[in-house]
């Protein structure tokens, strides 16, 4: 991964966060499937750093079955409680990596939930 690739991802993140332009956000989701580990990692980081704003994109990716083994964990990282039923559904997926990602996502989600009574 070269500096220009990071710059591109950073530009996508900035445009998406500033304008809400969905195609810019989608490009980050697509980058999760890059063959370059650096690109994958930075794209995932930017999505998680965007927090709840990434939830619709993550939901869309889940529905499309796009980069599931990463987006299911991201759903947990950003605390997307609304996507819990989707994650539950994927815990029984035939692909063990996807099923594990869904279980991990659910676990992370549960760990971020405030204790009862708070």
């Amino acid at each position, binding site marked *: 991964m070269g*500096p220009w690739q*990071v710059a591109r991802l950073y530009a996508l993140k900035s445009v998406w966060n500033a304008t809400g332009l969905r195609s810019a956000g989608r490009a980050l989701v697509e980058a999760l499937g890059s063959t370059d*580990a*650096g690109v994958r990692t930075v794209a*995932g980081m930017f999505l998680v750093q965007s927090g709840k704003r990434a939830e619709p994109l993550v939901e869309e990716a889940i529905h499309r079955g796009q980069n599931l083994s990463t987006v299911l964990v991201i759903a947990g*990282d*950003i605390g997307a409680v609304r996507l819990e039923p989707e994650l539950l559904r994927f815990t029984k997926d035939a692909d063990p990596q996807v099923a594990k990602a869904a279980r*991990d996502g659910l*676990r*992370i989600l549960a760990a971020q939930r405030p204790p009862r009574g708070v």
Partner: protein
Amino acid sequence: MAKHRKTSRRGEYRKRVRTTGRPASRAETSKARPPRAPIPGPEAFTGLEDPSHVRSQAATLLLIGTHMRGDVAAMDARAREARGLMRVRSTGAAGGLPANDMRALGFPRMHAGAARFLPATLEKAAGVRFAARPGGAPTPSEARAVSSRLLGVAKAFYRDANPETAGALLEVSLRHPHELVRVAAATSYVEVAADPARAIRILGQGLRSRDRLARDVAAHALAHVDPRNPALEKLLASKTRPSRRKPSRTGMIVHGTWAGASSWWQPPTGDFWKYLHDNVDPNLYGAQDRFEWSGGYSDAARALGGHDLQAWVQQHTLGGLDLFTHSHGGSVAMLANQAGTSIGRLVLLSCPVHWPKYAPDFTRVSKVVSIRVHVDLVILADRGGQRFRDNRIQEHVLPLWFDHFATHFPGTWEQFHVRSML
């Protein structure tokens, strides 16, 4: 009373017909296959040993509790909300419980209330008086009383399901010869009785049951009613026996963010694993149950990873092992270290610096070495620091730029003699 005796004989007759000729022992029942279909309505209360009868009774008694607590109303509201929010088709669930299952069990429409009854009142409602408080297995006289009264109180409940008839059914069921039914009755009894002590006693005994289902139901119920019960604490104590092997000097790789599925760190063929095993640490852990964490990019994900790593090390009795970590795998290792895991050498490869959130516990680690490249782009994106400033951590910056992953390339280790830096 005469009517009840008749009923009782009929019940006994049915019991004989439905069982295989001799009453099933508790242990046998626990191993029995789950019944294919529940026995609906008061009919369920005609047998005292047959697994289908026993489980149908237990389910009915537990449902009484869910109605009394208001769980059903809450589940119903949640189901309505979910239908509204998610626009999913109704599954025909009544009260949040599958309508078909409720129908199959013949559970009556129940009027819940906040009434609480004294045991004597419930015994009176059941038309029976017991000499002693309920405990473990019923005495012969209690068993006779249960046999003669159970169907009667069940019928009364199905005729008019209210807290009093439910309470009477539960009161009699507390002396049921089958432990699962006693435990189920005790679970719901706390919702109708003025004093839960007798139910807690039965639940406490249920924890020691040989029947796994009875044990599980008792544990769940007791956790709600009496969470500090000493019997529960015993159950919660870890049963994992620590290995008697001597702690061995070994090493392990901890991967970083999103890298769980990557091949480079996986034994026995991952290129970095193979390189370390062949050139640096022949004891590098390579069994199938090697440690792995979610690789999630959040504090919560790393905290879970740290917790799991600590548990893994304890379970394998590998305290003092060397850890070769990449990226936030180092953060996970430091969290495990802070939580009490002893580490030999902690090797941090391209680890983002988030001090003091992720810092080693220097009293529990022999040596910390950090190896990185110049201006790591992934660490920039992570907003982490590029260098540790604590002089107890040996920093080595390789003459490479930008590449976050170069620190786990075997070629890099060879070219820059990284082994000599450890």
